[in-house]
Structure formats: structure tokens, C-alpha cells
């Protein structure tokens, strides 16, 4: 079984600063992890980083150099048992680019992990980190034991650490010659290995699919319940009258495979909010939300934080003065939703009222006399959609290929591009300490993976 670990950028920063403060000494910590089962194997999702204090929690060892104290281990393994979480002990080694457990490390695993498994009744393990490398030894209650495949740092950029750096294995493909001069062979390999989800294949989503396929992303998953209509043709890139009546995901298949015949494409004709559709996106490395329902926003926001999958929400809006009928504002918006504090929910971008209204049937809406909000109409301009789609995919590709690092300032959480006055506005997330999606509260869904329900619809 393939096992990987995923840690959010802010947690990685916290761990890295503790492990490598510049003293060239050994330091320790414990990672509290949720679990998610994917078709590729098991993901351990870091929910919390508990640093071992020097001289109190991390002390000289009679058998090795340093060790976690029994009290520190006991406190954290009992927490894991209470939360149904996975316990991972972490320490650091010197060197860079490659790392391995010492014989003393492995002996300590043999001594202590069987007992920890009995207490937690969950997988337990150890990680050793060096500069640019991470190795892991994961033990399971059934007695099996697996090496960690990789540790992924997920956020505005995506970085994978393994015990040994992988060679760039890219046969030169002239289709990507110009862009690989920027991303490098390794960057192009990264794109080819990524699985990206695109939720909604309308005006914005079709452009995102086109861009991702042409960039060389290896695998796409799309979902949309609709069919191509005549009124869509002005916004669906590459669509023609011959596509009218086709499901949008099939139209998008043609779009993607025309751009990249080797792409692995999965098109789901259904609503992302439905449980069985959303499940296909939980093994993705990145998500683009290009659907305009609040219900989809809630599921997307939950998936990002619960499964530590970074994403981008893209949309556009035309605002009209209700009294005069004048267009008062036109803008595209790109919102980064990454597994860190601050999200769509705690920034008021998923109104409870809208969620409730979207749950009504047409009959209920008529009976309860709902009136559509005439202030806001669905935009229908391909150029507006293209601004948002291009910004979103641009941010994604520079993040995943390592050209943009999350430490580079300024960073935005939301980018608004206003068409009427050409203003560009950046916003940064607020953060609620009690947010049920992104906070560090024990009741939040952050990092809980498959052990927690997504707010999806169950079709009965």
C-alpha cells in the first residue's frame, strides 16, 4: 500500500523552523494526523504540529542521541486515541537531498511502536527530516509496515519531499519546449504527474480545462450536470453548434484530449454537491471551483480543509442598479482557498440564506414566494471569464512548479479585476478562530479526511 503524508504550508513552516533553527542540532515533534483513503493508497493529513520542548520533552537518550520523553509521548498518543488520529513522531538529521533512519532510530521504533499501536488502535509512525528530504516508517495495527512515499507541503505552492530526490524523467516533448524553458524538465514532469479537479465546465471551467490540458497536466477530473445549449456557445471555448445537446463534460473531454491526447480525463455528468460525485475529487492534487452555486462552494471549501487539497475559486459578477438598470460594476474574482486559517466560510462568502434557498425544490420556492435577486445576474462574457481563468491557472502553475513560493510577498487571498475602471484589488482573508472548516479547533473538520462527513447531498 502506498502511504503519503500531507501537511499545510503554515504547519510545515512551524515544523521546519523548529527542526532547523540554525544550531545544527537534533530536534523533535509529534504530528497529529487524520486519514484519507484514495485509489492510490492512504493519505495521512497533518491536523496539528506539537513541538517537543528542548530539555523538557526532548532529552538526551541513553541509547541514541535524543529522545521524546515518556510523558510527552503518553500525552500525545492518548490524544490520538481520543481523536481517532494517527501519531507521527518527527526528528531531524543533518545533510540535504537525502535522509534515512539510523539503526538507533529503527531500534527505537521496534521497541516502542507495538505498544503505541495497542494504545491508539490507529497507525503510528516516525518521520525523519533533512534539508530537502523526508523519510517515514509507518506501522499499522494489522502488523504491516510501510515506508512513506512522500511528504507533500500543500498551499499556495506544492512541494513534495521524499527520502531521495527523484530524477527528472521527461522525454523531451517539443509541444512543451517553450514553456519548459521556464518550468524546466522537472517542472514539466510535476505538471504531468498532477491530478487536477475542475468543478463546473461552463464559461470559466472550459477555459480552465483548456489551459490545464495545454500546460501538460497529466490527469483531469471534471463534473457538470448540464448539456451544451445554444446560449452557451459565446462562452464555451472551442464549442460549436454541433456540440449543442452534448453533455458539458463530454465537450470538455474533446477540448482536453485535443490539446493533450495523453491526458487522463474523467468527466462526471452530475452535481459536485452529490456525495458520489464529490468523492472522485478527493484524490486530486488541486481543485478549481468554476461552478456558481453556494452549495458547491461549501463542499469545495470543506474538501480543501478536510483533505488538505489546495484550490482556487473563480467567478465573475455583473452588478446592476435595481432602480436604473445601469451596470454599476463588472469584475472577475479569483480566490485562493488553501488549507490554512481563513476560508470562504469564515469570510462570509457562503451565506446561510443562499444555502437554504438552493436546497428548495421549484415547488417549495413557488410556495414560499422566493424572488430572484435582480441586482446580480450571471455574467455571460468570455473575456471576463478569461481574465479570471487565466489568473487562476497562472497562479496554480507557478505555485506547483516551484517558481512562486508562499514566502514571497505580497500574497493575496482574493484578486478582483474590475472591467469598468481597470482597477485590480487584492484582499487578504480574515480568520475566525471558531471556523468549523479551517480553524485549529478540535471540532473543526480540518485534516480529518475520510473520518468526517463532507457537507454533500445523499441521494436516497
Amino acid at each position, binding site marked *: 500500500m502506498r502511504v503519503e503524508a500531507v501537511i499545510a504550508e503554515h504547519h510545515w513552516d512551524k515544523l521546519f523552523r523548529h527542526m532547523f533553527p540554525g544550531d545544527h542540532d537534533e530536534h523533535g515533534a509529534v504530528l497529529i494526523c487524520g486519514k484519507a483513503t484514495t485509489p492510490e493508497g492512504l493519505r495521512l493529513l497533518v491536523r496539528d504540529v506539537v513541538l517537543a520542548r528542548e530539555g523538557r520533552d526532548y532529552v538526551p537518550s541513553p541509547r541514541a542521541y535524543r529522545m521524546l520523553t515518556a510523558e510527552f509521548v503518553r500525552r500525545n498518543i492518548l490524544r490520538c486515541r481520543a481523536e481517532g488520529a494517527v501519531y507521527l513522531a518527527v526528528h531531524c538529521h543533518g545533510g540535504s537531498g537525502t535522509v534515512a533512519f539510523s539503526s538507533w532510530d529503527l531500534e527505537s521504533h521496534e521497541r516502542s511502536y507495538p505498544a503505541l499501536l495497542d494504545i491508539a488502535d490507529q497507525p503510528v509512525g516516525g518521520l525523519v527530516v533533512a534539508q530537502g528530504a523526508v523519510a517515514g516508517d509507518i506501522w499499522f495495527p494489522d502488523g504491516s509496515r510501510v515506508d512513506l512515499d512522500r511528504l507533500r507541503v500543500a498551499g499556495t505552492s506544492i512541494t513534495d519531499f521524499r527520502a531521495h530526490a527523484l530524477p527528472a524523467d521527461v522525454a523531451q516533448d517539443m509541444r512543451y519546449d517553450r514553456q519548459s524553458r521556464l518550468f524546466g524538465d522537472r517542472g514539466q514532469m510535476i505538471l504531468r504527474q498532477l491530478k487536477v479537479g475542475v468543478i463546473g465546465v461552463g464559461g470559466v471551467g472550459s477555459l480552465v480545462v483548456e489551459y490545464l490540458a495545454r500546460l501538460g497536466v497529466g490527469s483531469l477530473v471534471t463534473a457538470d450536470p448540464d448539456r451544451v445549449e445554444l446560449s452557451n456557445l459565446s462562452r464555451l471555448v472551442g464549442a460549436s453548434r454541433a456540440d449543442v445537446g452534448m453533455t458539458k463534460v463530454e465537450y470538455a473531454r474533446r477540448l482536453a484530449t485535443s490539446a493533450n491526447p495523453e491526458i487522463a480525463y474523467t468527466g462526471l455528468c452530475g452535481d459536485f454537491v452529490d456525495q458520489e460525485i464529490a468523492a472522485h475529487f478527493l484524490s486530486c492534487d488541486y481543485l478549481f471551483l468554476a461552478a456558481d452555486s453556494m452549495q458547491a462552494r*461549501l463542499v469545495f471549501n470543506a474538501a480543501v480543509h478536510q483533505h488538505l487539497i489546495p484550490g482556487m475559486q473563480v467567478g465573475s459578477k455583473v452588478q446592476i442598479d435595481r432602480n436604473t438598470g445601469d451596470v454599476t460594476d463588472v469584475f472577475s474574482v479569483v480566490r485562493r482557498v488553501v488549507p490554512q486559517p481563513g476560508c470562504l466560510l469564515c469570510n462570509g462568502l457562503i451565506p446561510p440564506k443562499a444555502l437554504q434557498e438552493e436546497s428548495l425544490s421549484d415547488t417549495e420556492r413557488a410556495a414560499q414566494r422566493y424572488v430572484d435577486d435582480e441586482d446580480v445576474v450571471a455574467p455571460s462574457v468570455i473575456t471576463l471569464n478569461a481574465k479570471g481563468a487565466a489568473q487562476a491557472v497562472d497562479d496554480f502553475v507557478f505555485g506547483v512548479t516551484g517558481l512562486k513560493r508562499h514566502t514571497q510577498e505580497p500574497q493575496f487571498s482574493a484578486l478582483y479585476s474590475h472591467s469598468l475602471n481597470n482597477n485590480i484589488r487584492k484582499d487578504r482573508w480574515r480568520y475566525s478562530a471558531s471556523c*468549523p472548516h479551517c480553524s485549529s479547533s478540535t471540532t473543526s473538520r480540518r485534516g480529518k479526511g475520510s473520518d468526517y462527513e463532507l457537507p454533500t447531498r*445523499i*441521494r436516497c
Partner: protein
Amino acid sequence: MMKGSVLEALEELRQAFPENVVAEEDGEGGAYVKISDVALAEIYVQPNTWVGFRIPFQYPQADVYPHFVRPDLARRDGRPLGEAMTSSQWRSDGAIQISRRSSRRDGALETALIKLDKVIEWLRRRP
């Protein structure tokens, strides 16, 4: 089949209204709920009413709204029922719709029970 969050809401309602809660699946993971024998204030002709509402599958982030009461609800003084109360339909039955939205709703704090208590209190305190 109901979502775990909906089941939790129902459990809280059943603890507050023992033997008065009837819940049916809505086919999406939510529930239609009916609370019987809710006492009314003396401004009304009827001494009590049922209260019906739907808990959507995306509760607690989704608002629980609107609420419905008996269709023949009437005031002793003969005046109209007033604002936020309109003739409507609850599922297949006639009903009075009570439209009390939560403007700054915090799903973690305003459970379905707390919302119901607010609506009942508002109904009882009508001038």
C-alpha cells in the same frame, strides 16, 4: 438516510420536545421536522400549534428557514396576523409561513433547536 449533523440536530430537538418530534427524510440527507403541541400565547384563538420546518442537508451552515404553523391560526382581537406571517403551504398541507431569517447566523451557535426557540418566542410575543 440523514447526514450526521442533521441527526445531531434531531437528537437535540427530541431532548427538548420529548415525544413531540416527527422527522422524515427529505431525500437529500436532510429532514422535514414537525413539532406538535407547541403552546401559544393568549393573543391567539388556538391554545397550541404544530411547527414544521426543514433541516437542509448542509446544516449547520445552511439556515433553517422558514417555519410553518397551523393554517387556521387567528388572533383573538380579529386583527391580521401581521408581518412575516403569510398563508402558504407546508409540504402538502396549508400552513401559515413564518419568515424569520437569521441575518448573522453562526451555524456553530444557532442550532435548529435554538432557531426554533427564537421563532416560538417571537410568535408568543407578538403585540
